[in-house]
């Protein structure tokens, strides 16, 4: 079995699994005053310190959530819900649906939303963000790295122009945290969302970084956990696991980056050599290390996925709707591909746990599948 779908989720690191297991035995409620509670509180505080240290920020800026989607909702709704009068939001068309659907929801509440397009490689220039600014712009949301193409966006420049105007900049860094060097003491990002299971941590836990200058109305009301930002008893094993996973990732960041880049480049070169009519989706020059998005002309991505699945190889295609059937990716559509071309898009995403042998196995199996499908047409 070969797992090449690490932008969807990653296998939990063994060290993380051990930490989660151990923390599961610490059943105290961190809000309790007694020893059990203090033990839980200590673990949560330590985890928050670890994460803050990895990102080079103050630990008071880290709020634990249930994952990337909640972090993004908490940031967007947290900024806009209390606002009255003309309110404007800028997002890119290639954001994750957690941002786009929340933007649509805000639109239904009367918020004006500008959706910024991208070019054929999925690129978005910081100037385009600047050009879309309005006097009443209250937030800019452009992701760090795209989940489908791996494209990196000009976070620093977008952040600088936002900071200069006092507009909060929200960065969906779900695909970047733990995979890419992120120093928030240098980057002008005001709000940043992350999810543990994208960097070999557990599912159901993530965090939202928020500079204290940005005022957020809480989404979830109840107890005073997370300094009143997010009510509800903390997910202790998840939080401990996330901190462990980030610490681990940060410690081997460049080593992993090099490995994953090398594997990806080998995969790309091999495909180029063996598959006539292969094309790349996205900005080949500026993308996260492990992502390769391609299409084989005239071959549906869905069919490729099914054939690969039956050969024991997991990749991803387009966007799954609620029934599990595939819709064309909104990211590829935003890049100007028509529906048919968009449905040809296949995403391979690698992690530190993939090997050269797996890449070679993929390159051995894949051309045969393509020929078989082409022959059936």
């Amino acid at each position, binding site marked *: 079995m070969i797992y090449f779908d690490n932008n969807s989720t990653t296998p939990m690191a063994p060290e993380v699994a051990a930490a989660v297991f151990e923390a599961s035995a610490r059943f105290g409620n961190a809000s309790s005053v007694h020893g059990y509670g203090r033990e839980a509180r200590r673990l949560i505080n330590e985890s928050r310190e670890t994460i803050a240290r990895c990102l080079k920020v103050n630990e008071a800026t880290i709020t634990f959530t249930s994952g990337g989607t909640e972090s993004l909702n908490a940031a967007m709704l947290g900024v806009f819900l209390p606002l009255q009068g003309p309110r404007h939001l800028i997002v890119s068309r290639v954001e994750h649906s957690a941002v786009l659907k929340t933007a649509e929801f805000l639109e239904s509440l009367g918020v004006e939303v500008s959706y910024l397009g991208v070019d054929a490689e999925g690129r978005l220039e910081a100037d385009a963000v600047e050009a879309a600014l309005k006097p009443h712009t209250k937030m800019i949301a452009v992701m760090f790295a795209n989940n489908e193409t791996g494209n990196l966006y000009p976070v620093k420049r977008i952040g600088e122009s936002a900071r200069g105007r006092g507009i909060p900049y929200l960065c969906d860094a779900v695909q970047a945290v733990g995979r890419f060097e992120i120093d928030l003491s240098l980057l002008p990002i005001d709000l940043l969302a992350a999810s543990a299971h994208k960097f070999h941590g557990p599912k159901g836990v993530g965090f939202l970084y928020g500079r204290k200058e940005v005022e957020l109305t809480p989404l979830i009301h109840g107890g005073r956990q997370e300094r009143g930002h997010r009510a509800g008893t903390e997910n202790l094993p998840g939080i401990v696991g996330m901190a462990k996973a980030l610490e681990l990732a940060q410690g081997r960041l460049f080593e992993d980056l090099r490995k994953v880049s090398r594997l990806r480049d080998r995969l790309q070169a091999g495909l180029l050599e063996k598959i006539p009519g292969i094309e790349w989706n996205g900005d080949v020059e500026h993308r996260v290390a492990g992502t390769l998005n391609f299409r084989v002309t005239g071959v*549906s991505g*869905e*069919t490729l996925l*099914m*054939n690969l*699945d*039956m050969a024991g190889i997991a990749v991803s295609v387009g966007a799954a*709707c*609620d*029934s*599990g*059937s*595939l*819709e064309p990716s909104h990211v590829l559509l935003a890049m100007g591909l028509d*529906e048919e071309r968009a449905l040809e898009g296949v995403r391979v995403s690698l992690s530190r746990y993939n090997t050269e042998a797996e890449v070679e196995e993929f390159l051995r199996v894949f051309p045969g599948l393509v020929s*078989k*499908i082409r*022959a*059936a*047409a």
Partner: protein
Amino acid sequence: MNLDRKKVVVAMSGGVDSSVAALLMKQAGHEVIGITLKLWDAPKDEPQRHTSCCSIEDITDARRVADQIGIPFYVVNSKTQFREQVVDRFVQEYLSGRTPNPCAMCNDKVKFDFLFTKAFELGAYHIATGHYAKKEWDAQKSEWRLLKGQDDRKDQSYFLFSLGQKQLEHTLFPIGGMSKDEVRKIARDAGLKTSEKPDSQEICFVPSGDHGDFIAKYLKGQAPQSGEFVNESGEVLGSHEGIHRYTVGQRRGTQVAQGERVYIKAIDPVTNRITMSENQALFQPVLLANGVRWVRPVADGIEVTARIRHRHEGSPATLRLVEAGRVRVEFHEPQRAISPGQAVVFYLGEECLGGGWIEQGLGN
């Protein structure tokens, strides 16, 4: 093309018939791949009590049955084709004063084509479906014959008339030789989640059964206007609610105050008029059909039993092959309410020979 005879793609709808079809294929030692075609998204305001096909519930059921059987399962999106080839044409047919048969249209233009494409791309020699129909190899003529399902009340060969030799070669009907009771028993014995699921009755994308309302909603206010009911001499009898709501042969819902019972004889989309007549005038001895497909070739002048709708027991007729794809069907006895748009399907005993789309009734 190098296809594996052990591999079978089973079309799973989430109902009991296709669940059992998948189970039987697996038990027979095939390498089975379950596929649900996602054909349609119910509108968001569709009342929940009408669960339509392709609902999340049905797809979840199909997925759970695949888990129970232990086969890989995929949902394949064929919404665009279904909308264009079935739903749009269904609406257009009603707007043209005709009575479409969407299930036969879907089998003809969407379902089988899609399944074959997927199956071949996956290297599978066969697809299998949960239809009540059988196929039989005629060794003398070296060709396949399509037969009615064993269970007379459940026979679905009518909807499959468009299958040709090549398609039959690659299709299996695992439950064609069984009764519904047997199928349910197999499902029950295997503990399949769908064993007690009721049969679907309505057109899958019109779960309420009211095609007039569906069309009105689908056309978002662009549905046909009300018009006049007239009798055969052209006298106005009353007003109708738009021709898309009516079907030839129908009596109820016409709101015409007449002494005798009157029925819809003809629907004219140009004048927007619906002609009413007494029952006797609905009988016609001849029909013309187009888009005719043959399971296997037949000779001009052949005597057959012709069915002019699914729930029609069939009536003896002589077939005249007018030209390629077109036949003239001469019934021995006049038939009531021959409806343009419906499928006419030809049988020789248990064998389904083929069929086509009714263009018009003649005579009378």
